[in-house]
């Protein structure tokens, strides 16, 4: 058997490992094994590539792999779980960036060649475009998640986006028909980077889970496009698997918000006006509470459901929540956690934080389970969540009309732990805060939970 064939066989093996690995990652029991199979597949693919006849010198390769390994290892082992959305955003960006760079390098190698096939140029443009958008889009997402970038929207921002999109498309068609115009290629690369920024700067907060899932998908598609550029099957297979899995997650996130992907990317969110204004809803109806009062409320209750949101992540309150939950359980209270799919800033964000705090995932209820259990719940404690529990979603019209929510207002008593009455991402007031059975606990989530825990112990 020739060397080329052995390498191709190794790629086939790696592809099978990736498929088994991804499948494993979809079941709790097989997830660890799935991740390991994926890593093994990667090892096989890299080893096979190093044996390729086109690879003549190993110094640059070894240096790059060593540097990347050290940085990747440090990032993965040092990161706090609350910073996971930032890390995932950054990895998405690096994956997309790597694919774009490979396509650029390959184009550079070939750019002396006057007769580039249209297949090659199309794939190269696709790779640079998708990879470039993924890179800068992820960097912007990263900046927003760690709080260094604010949402920014030009007047008629979506019109500019469509224009930039058309410019890229026009350049791409031009380049594919006239590949000798090298400058068009590098212009496309530049505009793609700019496009990634334009697409993501106006999107923030509650739409982040959709954006992160979509960027995840795009990092895969960029790799697949690069596979066409260098004519490599394992890149195409692995890339399209990731592209598909990311798209499925994106669809799950969009469904959980009752939003269309197009609206997230190009639409205007929450047309202001129309609805009742905040003062009207809140005036005279807000009941503020304290740790001592809550301790008394919870002394006699039999079931408590926590509904965490982004505020829990910001306050790093998951351990304080765990302490309160353990204390309640030791007193015979039935404790559950109602998790909305888009609570937090990335798919599964709340689950990761609660797992870090050692909370058994059997206690975590999804949207349907939460709503089935909420009517029998004595106390629902909303921690830093807002739009996902806003009863306005049940109204026939309004900015969040139709979005599936956790109906916490159907619990006997609702406690909302929040720093202020400020609106959530949808920028609308929340009638839940003014409901007859709602108590507002103003303050930092971690401090609030600690106070309640201490007060219950003092009873």
């Amino acid at each position, binding site marked *: 058997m020739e060397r080329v064939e052995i390498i191709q066989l190794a790629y086939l093996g790696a*592809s099978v490992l990736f498929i088994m690995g991804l499948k494993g990652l979809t079941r709790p029991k097989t997830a660890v094994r799935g991740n390991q199979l994926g890593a093994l597949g990667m090892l096989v693919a890299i080893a096979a590539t190093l044996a390729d006849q086109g690879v003549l010198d190993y110094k*640059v390769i070894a240096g790059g792999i060593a540097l990347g390994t050290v940085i990747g290892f440090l990032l993965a082992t040092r990161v706090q779980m609350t910073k996971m959305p930032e890390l995932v955003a950054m990895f998405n960006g690096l994956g997309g960036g*790597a694919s774009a*760079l*490979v396509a650029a390098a390959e184009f550079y190698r070939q750019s002396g060649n006057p007769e580039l096939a249209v297949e090659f140029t199309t794939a190269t443009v696709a790779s640079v475009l998708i990879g470039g958008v993924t890179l800068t889009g992820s960097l912007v997402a990263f900046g927003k998640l760690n709080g260094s970038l604010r949402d920014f929207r030009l007047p008629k921002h979506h019109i500019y986006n469509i224009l930039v999109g058309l410019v890229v498309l026009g350049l791409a068609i031009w380049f594919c028909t006239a590949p000798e115009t090298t400058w068009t290629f590098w212009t496309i690369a530049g505009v793609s980077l700019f496009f990634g920024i334009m697409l993501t700067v106006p999107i923030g907060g509650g739409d982040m889970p959709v954006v992160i899932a979509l960027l995840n998908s795009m990092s895969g598609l960029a790799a697949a496009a690069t596979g066409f*550029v260098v004519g490599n099957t394992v890149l195409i297979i692995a890339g399209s698997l990731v592209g598909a899995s990311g798209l499925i997650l994106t669809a799950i996130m969009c469904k959980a918000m009752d939003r269309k992907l197009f609206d997230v990317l190009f639409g205007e969110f929450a047309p202001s006006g129309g609805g009742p204004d905040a003062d009207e809803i809140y005036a005279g109806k807000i009941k503020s509470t304290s740790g001592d009062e809550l301790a008394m409320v919870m002394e006699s209750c039999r079931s408590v459901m926590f509904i965490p949101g982004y505020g829990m992540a910001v306050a790093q309150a998951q351990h304080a929540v765990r302490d309160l939950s353990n204390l309640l359980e030791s007193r015979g209270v039935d404790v559950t956690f109602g998790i909305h799919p888009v609570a937090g800033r990335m798919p*599964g964000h709340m689950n990761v934080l609660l797992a870090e705090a050692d909370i058994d995932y059997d206690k975590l209820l999804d949207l349907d389970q939460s709503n089935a259990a909420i009517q029998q719940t004595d106390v629902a404690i909303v921690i830093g969540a807002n739009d996902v529990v806003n009863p306005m979603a049940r109204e026939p019209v309004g900015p969040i009309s139709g979005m599936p929510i956790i109906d916490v207002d159907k619990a006997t008593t609702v406690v909302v732990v929040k720093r202020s009455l400020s609106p959530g991402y949808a920028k609308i007031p929340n009638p839940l805060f003014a409901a007859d059975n709602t108590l507002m606990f103003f303050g930092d989530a971690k401090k609030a939970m600690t106070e309640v825990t201490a007060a219950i112990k003092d009873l």
Partner: protein
Amino acid sequence: MITLLTIFMLAVFVGFEIITKVPPTLHTPLMSGSNAISGIAVVGAILVSGAADPNTATWIGFGAIVFATINVVGGFLVTHRMLDMFKKKD
């Protein structure tokens, strides 16, 4: 080219088929794990940076190798760390 397109289409369908009904607990690990797999670009990066005499393409490739390796190593490791937390209470 047709062969590559065929492979691409089939792989997309396989992807949609194997990822059905992911429990919410695994949304983040699935994302970070699959993201590590998208670091497969490292294979392309190696192919473009192995020239006998380093040129500009080699150095672009070097950047790609660093990016992709961070993605691969960091992605698989952090996924493992997360899944470890999920396991603890079994």
